[in-house]
């Protein structure tokens, strides 16, 4: 019995003129899924390293500490000298000496709450915050050496500079990876589309013979590969998001590794990957189809 309903000039009719599938169908779906999976992780890496860089940058800008270790009878005098020096140092936004209670709180995690702070020769600590422009650290060090010999500027945040730079580079590499993944996906889909076009050379010649325009023929292939790209990428994205969700929760001990993932609205970012993959598949197939069609008169 004739299936006349399928003769409607709709998309299914367009699709049907090309044979159902070949090995390229599975290849395209699998490639898209794998690439989307990798892209989600690259995205998570970029976002996590971005958060890390921001956190470290914030910490970097927060404070420095001056530790004053001197004989008990000189400690007050040297502390005053340090505070005087800070009051005239450009680039210092605020500063204050930590009192005994704060010192005790700092030492609690290591020595317990019963530590007799009064009876111990603890150094005095001065916390300072830099302005956005920063201060002349070396100049301050030299000045402290002259005016308060027991004072040591503990620039404890400086070690984080290379880490922040590293986090920034990691973020860049994450985005670069996504671009490369997109490029690789476009390349693979182009190859798969070319294989499909070559395998259907006779179909294309027949379609041209009966008056099909290039746009019609290309549409049949483009639509198919776009859907395959979208389907594969959606599957890969879902699997990757589940995998990321199942990673151990963020904690201090885990550090960066357990921070790999998405937070809040960040979970929406991976949802852009399937449409982007479909767009890449669309462009790659369309380009391959029109290039191939030029060879068929």
């Amino acid at each position, binding site marked *: 019995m004739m299936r*006349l309903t399928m003769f409607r000039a709709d998309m299914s009719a367009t699709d049907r003129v090309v*044979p159902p599938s070949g090995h390229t169908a599975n290849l395209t779906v699998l490639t898209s899924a794998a690439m989307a999976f990798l892209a989600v992780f690259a995205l998570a890496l970029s976002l996590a390293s971005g958060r890390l860089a921001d956190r470290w940058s914030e910490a970097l800008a927060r404070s420095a500490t001056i530790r004053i270790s001197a004989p008990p009878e000189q400690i007050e005098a040297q502390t005053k000298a340090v505070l005087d020096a800070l009051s005239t140092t450009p680039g210092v936004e605020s500063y204050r000496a930590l009192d005994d209670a704060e010192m005790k709180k700092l030492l609690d995690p290591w020595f317990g709450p019963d530590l007799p702070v009064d009876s111990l020769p603890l150094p005095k600590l001065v916390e300072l915050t830099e302005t956005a422009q920063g201060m002349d650290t070396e100049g301050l060090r030299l000045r402290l050496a002259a005016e308060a010999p027991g004072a040591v500027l503990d620039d404890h945040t400086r070690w984080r500079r290379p880490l922040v730079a590293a986090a920034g580079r990691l973020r860049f590499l994450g985005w670069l990876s996504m671009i490369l993944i997109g490029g690789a996906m476009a390349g693979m889909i182009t190859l798969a589309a070319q294989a499909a076009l070559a395998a259907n050379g006779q179909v294309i010649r027949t379609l041209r013979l009966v008056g099909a325009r290039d746009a019609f023929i290309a549409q049949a292939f483009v639509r198919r590969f776009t859907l395959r790209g979208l389907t594969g990428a959606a599957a890969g994205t879902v699997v990757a998001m589940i995998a990321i969700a199942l990673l151990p929760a963020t904690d201090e001990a885990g550090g960066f590794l357990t921070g790999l993932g998405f937070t809040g609205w960040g979970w929406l970012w991976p949802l852009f990957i399937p449409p982007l993959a479909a767009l890449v598949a669309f462009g790659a197939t369309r380009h391959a189809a029109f290039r191939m069609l030029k060879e068929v008169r």
Partner: protein
Amino acid sequence: MIELQNVAMGYGGSELVAEMTLKLVPGSFHFLTGPSGAGKTSFLKLCYAEMLPSAGYLNLFGQDVRTMTRDDIAHVRQKIGVVHQDCQFLDHLPVAENVALPLTVTGRSVDGAELRELLSWVGLRAQAGALPPQLSGGERQRAALARAVMMSPEVIIADEPTGNLDWEMSLRLLSLLVELNRMGKTVVIATHDLNLIRQAKAQVSARVLRIANRRLHLAGADL
């Protein structure tokens, strides 16, 4: 509708046929004969712009073929029904869908009754759901003819349509082409079957073209 003036054609720089001048007028019936390799198929390919002339002027439906875009060519082919010797079907689609293909590719819907009528006309109503590889040689040729006339084209070109058919089937196909010509269609048939030409000339006013010695001749004498 199809006009050639001093047209030459060839492959890879070598000229196969030259100085072809011909004007196909609406409603005419032409046979194209000549020895194998003379260029009959190439001549037909010129007529539906699958080949370009290497020299001369070729006009298809009022357009110089050299200035036609690919979309123009597609549009012209919608006015020309072609029956190839090897038929060129989409083997994954049933006969009915293959016959309806010219409509499908132009985005037009198919009238089921018309399609059934067309398939009945070529005697393939029962084979509508069959795949092309399941058809016999004669059935394939008739299906190709049905596809060629699906768009109600102005010109029907058939390249050795009876080459693989027995005499009875050849006559049946010829009668379909003659019927189309009587409906006002222009028909061009490439064949080396002189009996077929004699049979046709008994039914319609057919002119015989012959490609020989790298030239296109209009055969004057009766065959």
